């Protein structure tokens, strides 16, 4: 991200070593492993199975999962509190059949997540292509603008948008949440798609153009199909982040636009209901399915999140 500013756009594919077979324009997403790397499974003397770092890793993973396990376990508790009284599916019954408001909030969340992910993916991917391959005046500005939202604390983004919307007298509601979510999703899409484009050779476009493809044909028939995995990954990431966001949404939401995290927040603040426990399991299962779907891209995601 940082050094792209100085680097000339990759115009000629001389530096790219692999053979250019159109279906393999983009190297498999198993990770950016260079040709000189040592095999991963090679074990050195110093790395023991029960060494310090492995034990730490297991402890930290336990630390990360322990609270979730507690919550999931108590979602099957018959009583309301944290004293175990017996097994029951009471709170699941309540979650699925007696939580209209929660599901309405969930509906709002889904609507915002998909619309904002769609817009963010379109804007971010196109811009990634433009920034990567072409040089023009506003290039550096756009790069900075796409980087800053990612590093500023959420409170700052939320408050600046709140002040902005009230300064231009826009009613807070679904639209403002959509706008805010699109804004914080764009940088991730931009970054993920740029990473994908790094592995793409520009000379393919020139070949397509030489063979008579128009700019639009080259874009839709060559570029977009080959960066599709990156686009899909970033879209799913955007949906997840949008569903998850609380702080920014908290500031730009208005009456009647409660999203799921906002609803959970009100449940925590004004009387905890064990329905949160059962909801946790449902959400965690959803995330696990998503992580499994994206398992081939986890390394790329790790490098950009």
């Amino acid at each position, binding site marked *: 991200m940082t050094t792209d500013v100085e680097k000339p756009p990759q115009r000629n594919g001389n530096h790219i070593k692999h053979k250019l077979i159109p279906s393999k324009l983009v190297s498999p997403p198993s990770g950016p492993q260079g040709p000189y790397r040592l095999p991963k499974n090679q074990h050195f003397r*110093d790395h023991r199975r029960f060494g310090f770092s492995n034990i730490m890793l297991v402890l930290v993973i336990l630390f990360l999962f322990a609270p979730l396990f507690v919550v999931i376990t108590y979602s099957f508790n018959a009583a309301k509190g944290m004293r175990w009284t017996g097994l029951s599916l009471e709170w699941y019954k309540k979650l699925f059949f007696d939580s209209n408001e929660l599901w309405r909030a969930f509906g709002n969340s889904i609507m915002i997540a998909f619309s904002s992910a769609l817009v963010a993916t379109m804007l971010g991917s196109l811009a990634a292509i433009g920034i990567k391959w072409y040089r023009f005046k506003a290039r550096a500005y756009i790069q900075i*603008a796409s*980087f800053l939202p990612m590093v500023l*604390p959420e409170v700052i983004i939320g408050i600046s948008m709140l002040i902005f919307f009230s300064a231009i007298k826009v009613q807070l509601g679904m639209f403002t949440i959509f706008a805010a979510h699109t804004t914080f999703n764009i940088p991730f899409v*931009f970054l993920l798609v740029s990473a994908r484009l*790094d592995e793409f050779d520009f000379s393919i476009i020139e070949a397509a153009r030489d063979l008579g493809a128009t700019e639009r044909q080259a874009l839709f028939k060559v570029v977009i199909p080959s960066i599709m995995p990156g686009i899909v990954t970033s879209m799913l990431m955007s949906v997840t982040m949008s569903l998850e966001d*609380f702080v920014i949404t908290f500031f730009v939401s208005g009456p009647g636009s409660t999203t799921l995290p906002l609803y959970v927040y009100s449940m*925590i603040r004004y009387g905890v209901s064990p329905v949160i426990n059962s909801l946790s399991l449902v959400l965690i299962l959803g995330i696990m399915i998503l992580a499994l779907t994206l398992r081939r891209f986890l390394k790329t995601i790790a490098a950009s999140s």
Partner: protein
Amino acid sequence: MNVKQTTVRERRLGITYSSPMGIWLTVFFMVPLLIIIAYSFLTKGLYGGVEFPITFDAYLQMANPNFMRVLLRTVWVTTLATALTIALALPCGYAMARSKHQTLWLGMVIVPFWTNSLIRIYAWIAILSSEGFLNEMLKALGFIKESLPLIYNQGAVTAVLIYMYIPFAILPLFTTIDKFDFGLLEAARDLGATKPQAIFKVLMPNIRSGIITSVIFTFIPIFGAYTVPLLVGGKDSYMIGNIIVDQVTKTRNWPLASAFSLIITLISTLGVLWMMTSTARERARIKQQPLKDREDTLGPSHNGLTSAGRVS
């Protein structure tokens, strides 16, 4: 080699592709930031909002000892939590990079990371509160009679902050260490270095940029934390994020909130600049090496996107 200079067509295409995003970010991100800067120099309106004249009042109000205390506490809690997070994350990133099951471990870090942050905070409330899991457990086992005050204090805030942000540190560290050639450690050992020497003199300098990145991406969001101190902290664990939100929603002092936001923005930007220069310096150093070695260190498709992420 035929590196073309910027042509008109190229410029036109670049702008066509990038301007939708550029315009969106200008309207919904840059303009709001500029408004905040402007508001921080205005006067608080009678019913919220802002009024002229232009003053430095907001900045003078920040000198209030109450705010200073919160600011100092925020710096202290953030530094402590960041240091502990990195200390925990480093061995994790190392172990993950050396593991044969990288994807599995990544999944194990990412699943809690993607789980709704409120659910995760709620889980800690359920564990730590006076009738929570831990106290009930200890009582049932007969260790204690009265509930321990485990929540609504600074310790709880620090612990939960570490819990929330440790994935932000692990992921960039993993990405950087994964690019490290572990054969170098072996070589160092063969040349007589002890194990700690090999780690601190060979591994650490080589993953410097990853460490800086993870410091930045833990420090900045913790510095602006709002939800965690609000939900698991007491009155004595308020952080600067809470002050800002109170100024916006309760006191309706927008200039003051803007001034505080501006300070945080500046600190964050400085941190990011530090990170960028250190990454750039590292790349410059690598550029001086012969081409073959360079690819060895960076990998052919390294793009400088070592890591970047934001709280969500």
